[in-house]
């Protein structure tokens, strides 16, 4: 089913005209409502009138995650907080979170986009959908929830943390759809298999996102649970889940292009790549009121296809992600930057600032082990002391990262000191 045929299937010319009109309006809006953009444009000698159509977008300045950090918490909001009805937050590159805000209209558009994505996966108002993303500051839970309600489905807001209850309700309620991270769904499949309950479930489809996954995981999920699995993409800065999703033909993720304008750029030169060429995905939010972003650099690497899909949608499709421009890791759906570990360890005087992060996937769940060197001054000959120290470091790191790492203290001066850019991460999951 196509949720919004007018928008999802409009001709490319019509879409381009709509995007042009929205961009012109957006630039005028941010120029007059966000100091950050006005100053940037003035520094470049740009005035709102210089932007006449969507092709002029290349004249506009970029926005990065660091810009959000530098304007923490609300500096880039275009409306007074009386018009903001909700905020979400994700990890920043250092200690500070990236905070995003939504007006009532933003929330409505977000729900519309998620509804389109769920419809792409075959969800209708007759479905019972379990939302098993975290509810809270993370955009996943509430984002999927509002979209599913908009669609009219029966929503079961499971959130995360109780797999047993989830699988029991999946069987007892006869849930037909689930929204969660792909690795968590594989974990659930294991539980269902172990309890011989696969035959008892009525699941038809899954809408998985918040972390990169491989084609093998996709196949695994579909075969083990006998369902269709769909890839939903989004990031809180741009909106949250619902920016793009793949349809039943699985030939790339359809972008909600009337709301989020995608560009693929060479990440070194920042010039536009041809269709099909890999580059950094950059988004401009065409309709957002609370936190409108111009040319936001996602740091995700992908390519784009503008041809009409077999499903009938004309919206451009981005390919499965091919990696990251920066060193951000996604662990159990949480964005983690090595720089956060470094920033947190600086405050722990018992350890040196050297560390190694080892990311792996055991039984379909991500694991994060962090090796830290003890400062020789604080070494003790008592196990008790070392255990307390491990506990303290674990606490500091889990507060900073939002996930619980397994901390292992190692002998001083044993972690690799590489010349130039330090190698702090071993990712054994091979996700790209």
């Amino acid at each position, binding site marked *: 089913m196509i949720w919004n045929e007018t928008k999802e299937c409009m001709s490319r010319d019509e879409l381009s005209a709509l995007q042009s009109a929205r961009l012109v309006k957006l630039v005028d809006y941010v120029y007059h409502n966000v100091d950050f953009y006005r100053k940037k444009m003035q520094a470049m000698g740009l005035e709102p009138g210089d932007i006449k159509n969507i092709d002029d977008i290349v004249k506009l300045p970029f926005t990065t995650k660091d810009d959000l950090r530098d304007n923490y918490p609300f500096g880039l909001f275009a409306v007074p907080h009386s018009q903001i009805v909700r905020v979400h937050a994700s990890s920043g590159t250092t200690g500070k979170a990236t905070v995003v805000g939504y007006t009532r209209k933003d929330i409505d558009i977000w729900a519309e986009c998620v509804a389109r994505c769920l419809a792409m996966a075959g969800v209708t108002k007759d479905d019972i959908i379990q939302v098993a993303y975290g509810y809270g500051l993370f955009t996943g839970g509430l984002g999927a929830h509002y979209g599913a309600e908009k669609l009219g489905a029966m929503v079961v807001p499971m959130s995360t943390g109780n797999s047993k209850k989830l699988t029991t309700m999946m069987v007892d309620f006869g849930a037909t759809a689930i929204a969660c991270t792909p690795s968590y769904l594989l974990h659930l499949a294991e539980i269902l298999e172990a309890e011989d309950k696969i035959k008892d479930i009525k699941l038809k489809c899954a809408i998985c996102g918040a972390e990169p996954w491989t084609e093998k995981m996709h196949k695994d999920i579909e075969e083990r649970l006998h369902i269709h699995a769909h890839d939903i993409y989004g990031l809180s800065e741009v909106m949250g889940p619902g920016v793009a999703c793949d349809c039943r033909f699985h030939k790339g993720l359809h972008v909600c292009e009337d709301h989020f304008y995608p560009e693929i750029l060479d990440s070194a030169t920042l010039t536009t790549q041809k269709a099909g060429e890999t580059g950094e995905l950059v988004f401009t939010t065409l309709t957002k009121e609370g936190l409108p972003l111009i040319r936001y650099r996602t740091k995700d690497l992908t390519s784009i296809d503008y041809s009409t899909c077999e499903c009938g949608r004309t919206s451009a499709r981005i390919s499965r992600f091919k990696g990251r421009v920066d060193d951000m890791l996604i662990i159990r759906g949480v964005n983690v930057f090595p720089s956060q570990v470094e920033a947190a360890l600086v405050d722990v005087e018992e350890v040196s600032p050297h560390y190694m992060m080892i990311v792996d996937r055991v039984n379909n769940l991500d694991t994060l082990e962090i090796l830290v060197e*003890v400062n*020789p001054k604080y*070494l*003790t*000959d*008592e*196990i*008790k002391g*070392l*255990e307390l120290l491990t506990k303290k470091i674990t606490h500091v790191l889990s507060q900073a990262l939002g996930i619980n790492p397994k901390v*292992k*203290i*190692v*002998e*001083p*001066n*044993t972690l690799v000191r590489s010349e130039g850019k330090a190698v702090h991460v071993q990712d054994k999951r091979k996700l790209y």
Partner: protein
Amino acid sequence: MVAKQLSVFIENRQGRLGEVLKVLKTNGVNILSLSLADTTEYGLLRLIVNNPELGKEKLAEDGFSTMLTDVIILQINHEAGSLQGLLQILSDSDVNIEYMYGLSIDGDEASVVLKTSDLEKADAVFTKNGVKTLSHKEIK
């Protein structure tokens, strides 16, 4: 009397313990007793040696994390209940034992190495009660 124990923090890596022992051997440091406390991640090797300062210096040169720790070495009679009697003295004085291990056994007497919560107090209590404590030089 307070004795010096050579303590080495070692990761659970194959051959790591052997490397420590090799450094001691090369430098003529003789081990009189040892205890290895282990967890899944790392171990703490505690050694009573004839020359703890030299052992620490040479191990540090080779990149090992070492410490000298104050401990008490007690000489006890080879009789049932003698250790219990000595520990009762500590207990009565509100001193806790952090860890303990046995030392060389020589004829009618045995020795134990003790690390306590308050070492000076433990030493004083033992002296007051006429219990003999040894330095590493007195150990045969």
